[in-house]
């Protein structure tokens, strides 16, 4: 049988990153092919190549035996590839029908919209797909699940669609909605069509896919037949890279006193009953897939997002943190993954940035800023943290990523924070400088600072964290001590639906 869609030797690089290298992929007519890989494995680059947003550096694409070279999403659609992106491409103020037929709405006299025909055609389409939607509903008023259905209907409204690609289609759906989606997929599959289903959810892959292709670090790893594999095997292929075990967490020991206790934390949108404890001098890793809610936990703790229930205790005393300034008062500093937006004032100097959070307490007298005090403090921090800058007056924008990160750290140390929450501490920092940041984190912990380290890079978590909190879909799915923190265990917990069947868990082997 010839593949419906086939990729051979596809490579795509960006400055500094090889996103895809010699990738290949075969999708056969009549099948659902699952595509799995960790964060950053190259799935979204692959999607963008298929939808014509990127052009490949090398490699061949074939659709139905013909060379496939889309010039853009619209063209890709015309050629028979429908793509449903993770973030919706909908117009919330328009109706379902208006969204589905945008750009090709039925007209009268060339300029007038024919809403009767539009709603009629949409009703027929929704009927054919078995979707329970009103063509005239305003999309913005629908639930996320229904919006997802609108996206699907839009992708399938063109009956010539041969391959439907779905990127994490169930990220926002509950179990019943997932079942509906799977029914829809099965109805779409004919001997002439196929689906590429990108997901992290192992139980879903088993339910819907015929074969599973695993990619890792931009490379093709393996393709397995779903019925003949276990999910544990798939996970081990996903994470199967060699880990340098010569360096690991330092000063791991029991019996540290808790400094931050979070109990039953929930937010309106994502977090459900999040509980964990951070201990003095500890580096607590936070692992999980994109969208699991790790950043949201940090934001909720520092009061950047409102919480709907739950308590936070600092040094055993329950506190209320309505806004980030209050978090600072309790000695909690949050270092965002997006330093340039949330961490630094890019066109101010090193010294100004370091002093920013403590201006009022430490560096003013009678309302005037004491520049000499700031300069002194900055020089001291530049020395102790090893910030490489020509002077404390240097504009932060001109520093490297690693040194910018150190400036943010210096800011919170100056503020006397003893609980530091690092969100992706080494994102955008080159390899050499990463080690310096790691060393610095270890030093800070050794000096009694308590650190939460949110990281999407498993090697980083395994290297640094004394204990690992694993999150999945807004919940804590497990807390692993250092000796149980392996790539496989973390990935298993990270891909767990909180309400999934226990069989999936037991399948991954004894704990």
């Amino acid at each position, binding site marked *: 049988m010839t593949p419906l869609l086939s990729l051979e030797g596809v490579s795509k690089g960006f400055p500094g990153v090889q996103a895809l290298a010699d990738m290949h992929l075969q999708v056969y007519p009549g099948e659902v092919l699952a595509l799995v890989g960790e964060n950053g494995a190259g799935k979204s680059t692959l999607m963008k190549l298929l939808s014509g947003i990127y052009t490949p550096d090398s490699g061949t694409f074939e659709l139905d035996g013909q060379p496939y070279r889309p010039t853009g*999403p*619209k063209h890709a*659609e015309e050629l028979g590839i429908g793509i449903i992106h993770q973030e*919706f*491409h*909908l*117009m*919330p*103020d*328009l*109706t379902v029908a*208006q969204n589905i037929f*945008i*750009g*090709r*709405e039925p*007209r009268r006299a060339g*300029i*007038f*919209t024919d*809403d009767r025909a539009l*709603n009629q055609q949409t009703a027929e389409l929704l009927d054919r797909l078995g979707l329970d939607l*009103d063509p*005239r*509903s*305003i999309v913005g*008023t*629908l639930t996320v699940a*229904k919006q997802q259905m609108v996206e699907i209907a*839009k992708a399938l409204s063109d009956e010539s669609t041969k391959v439907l690609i779905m990127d994490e289609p169930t990220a926002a759906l509950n179990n019943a909605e997932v079942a509906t989606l799977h029914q829809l997929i099965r109805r779409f599959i004919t001997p002439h069509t196929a689906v590429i289903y990108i997901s992290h959810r192992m139980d879903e892959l088993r339910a819907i896919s015929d074969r599973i292709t695993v990619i890792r670090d931009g490379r093709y790893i393996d393709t397995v037949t779903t019925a003949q594999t276990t999910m544990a095997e798939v996970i081990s292929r996903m994470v199967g890279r060699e880990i340098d075990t010569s360096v690991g967490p330092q000063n791991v020991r029991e019996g540290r006193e808790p400094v931050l206790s979070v109990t039953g934390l929930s937010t*309106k949108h994502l977090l459900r009953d999040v509980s964990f404890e951070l201990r003095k001098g500890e580096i607590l890793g936070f692992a999980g897939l994109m969208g699991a809610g790790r950043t949201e936990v940090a934001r909720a703790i520092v009061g950047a997002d409102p919480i709907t229930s739950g308590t936070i205790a600092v040094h055993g005393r329950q506190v209320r943190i309505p806004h980030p300034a209050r978090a600072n008062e309790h000695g909690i500093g949050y270092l965002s993954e997006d330093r340039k937006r949330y961490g630094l004032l890019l066109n101010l100097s090193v010294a100004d940035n370091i002093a920013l959070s403590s201006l009022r307490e430490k560096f003013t007298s009678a309302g005037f800023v004491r520049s000499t005090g700031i300069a002194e403090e900055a020089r001291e921090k530049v020395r102790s943290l090893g910030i490489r800058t020509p002077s404390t007056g240097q504009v932060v924008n001109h520093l490297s990523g690693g040194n910018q990160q150190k400036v943010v750290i210096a800011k919170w140390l100056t503020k006397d924070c003893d609980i530091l929450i690092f969100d992706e501490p080494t994102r955008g920092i080159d390899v050499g400088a990463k080690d310096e940041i790691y060393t610095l984190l270890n030093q800070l912990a050794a000096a009694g600072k308590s650190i939460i380290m949110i990281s999407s890079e498993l090697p980083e978590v395994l290297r640094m964290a004394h204990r690992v909190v694993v999150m999945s879909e807004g919940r804590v799915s497990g807390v692993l001590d250092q000796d149980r923190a392996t790539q496989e265990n973390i990935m298993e917990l990270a891909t767990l639906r909180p309400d999934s069947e226990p069989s999936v868990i037991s399948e991954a082997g004894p704990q």
Partner: protein
Amino acid sequence: MSTTTTGQNETDQRPATGMTRHLRAGLQQLFAFAGLILIMIVFSLASPVFFTWGNLVGNMLFSTVVIGTLALGTTFVIITAGIDLSIGTGMALCAVMAGNFITTMGLPWQLGVVLAILFGGLVGLVNGLLVALAKLPPFIATLAMMMAADGLALVLSNSTPIYIDAETAGGFMQLSTGTLIPRVPNAVLVFVVVAVIAGIVLNRTILGRYTYALGSNEEATAISGVNVTRWKIAVYAFAGLFTGLAGVLIAARLGSAQPAIGMGYELQAIAAVVIGGTSLMGGRGSIVGTVIGALIIAVINNGLQLMSVPQEWQNVILGAVIVASVYIDTLRKRAASST
């Protein structure tokens, strides 16, 4: 805008249908409309003159026409999440052009009117090119156009008013002050007609559909295969036609083209649009709302004048009305999103 009347089950979780869609957009309108009625009742009690045909139609409606016409065009631009600051001085420029066409060049006044309106479209087209093609922020592009149009209006009129000859072009003035229907100034008639046209275009044409789509999610619209650059230019150009018409109407009312009258009209028009419930964030808005917004401004100005409230205080009150109407909308949205 077929259905914007009774009933609203806004807070419940049922998805809005096509009908409630208009109600959703219409709820702010409903507040605005209720506000309008309330204000009118207050003024009726305060002044015996207020609720008379002569005052309501002859004064109040008549004085709404120019701002209302500008607001109609600007509604389209604002729904795309844009803004047009050039409509005030653009209007003055179009008035000057009407004067030039009719008086200086001696063209038939009917032709002059058409050309002046098209000239407004040209001003809008340039705005559209700057915004959609050169990718300037709408605020900057139309601020530049506002200044340029102000200067051009003075240049093209030698900084003096161009009077329209009542002998040769009397029909031109009739456009505003004549009464095709007894006791209704033609300007009011013209406004009603163009408001209906604007409503049809916004709700029943491809241009209107894409106006909402652009403001709702421009990227998604582009990915769906709509040529957003071309349609955005079209929206600005279309809105410019209303600027041209406003220029004609004000010249007809004054019997002359005054080059320096435009400044400030743009903000009144934008205020009308905003009071009428159109979102500056784009995607939401309606012609009915804009008409109500324009009426509220007119009623307040007219009523306060009758009560001999000084002009300065009228502006203060107008400012408060803008804040109140948008704040109510904000509260409502916050309530809706926290369920």
